[in-house]
């Protein structure tokens, strides 16, 4: 079972867990990314996520497939990434991986988040308490900074 989606509504974690659950599995590992109120010392008020959607879905599917195949018995993998305007505390990404055994589930989940962070064409613009905003990437670079008009 592999499920990936880019979504504009809040991610339903319980439903995502339901997608990978079955009587054949004994372990579910999950990772959630959430919007934090500070980044590199700057107070953040919100984040705007955008994507090259067709390619992002394709990369997410590829990563889920790779994670699934790390073990003899395939993992079930469900990934949802949110797009649009997110507020503090909102879940931006949810990854849920199940397997008969815990080591494979934990490994698969970690594999997905690490690969997602470097390969999937999703971008974020942080909004700061001082009214500015900036594109920030996963290497910690502030690409541009501008005052909102």
């Amino acid at each position: 079972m592999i499920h990936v989606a880019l979504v504009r509504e809040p991610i339903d974690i319980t439903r995502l867990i339901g997608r990978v659950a079955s009587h054949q599995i004994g372990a579910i590992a999950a990772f959630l990314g959430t919007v934090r109120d500070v980044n590199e010392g700057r107070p953040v008020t919100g984040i705007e996520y955008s994507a090259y959607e067709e390619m992002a879905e394709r990369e997410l599917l590829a990563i889920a497939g790779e994670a699934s195949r790390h073990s003899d018995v395939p993992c079930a993998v469900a990934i949802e990434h949110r797009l649009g305007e997110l507020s503090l505390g909102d879940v931006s990404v949810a990854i849920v991986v199940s397997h008969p055994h815990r080591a494979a589930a934990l490994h698969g989940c970690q594999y997905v988040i690490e690969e997602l962070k470097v390969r999937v064409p999703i971008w974020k613009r942080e909004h700061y308490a001082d009214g500015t905003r900036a594109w920030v990437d996963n290497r910690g670079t502030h690409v541009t900074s501008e005052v909102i008009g």
Partner: protein
Amino acid sequence: MRVALHLFASYADALGTRSLDVSLPDNAIVRDALEYVRALPGAQSLPPQPLVAVNAEYAPLDRPLKQGDEVALIPPVAGG
């Protein structure tokens, strides 16, 4: 040939557009599409070698292009 050029996030901001329909020589490769973008106003803020995708897959600079390809410049990603 004609290809569609897609820009995202900070690159779209820098160039003031998200999509361009461009004309390239028939034997063009990814590098030629990049050179085209570099000559546009605002392109000086792009990195020396941005990642490129062709038809929604990462592609090397020497990949040949064909009529109708979707060429995208991929800024440093920030998912998660």
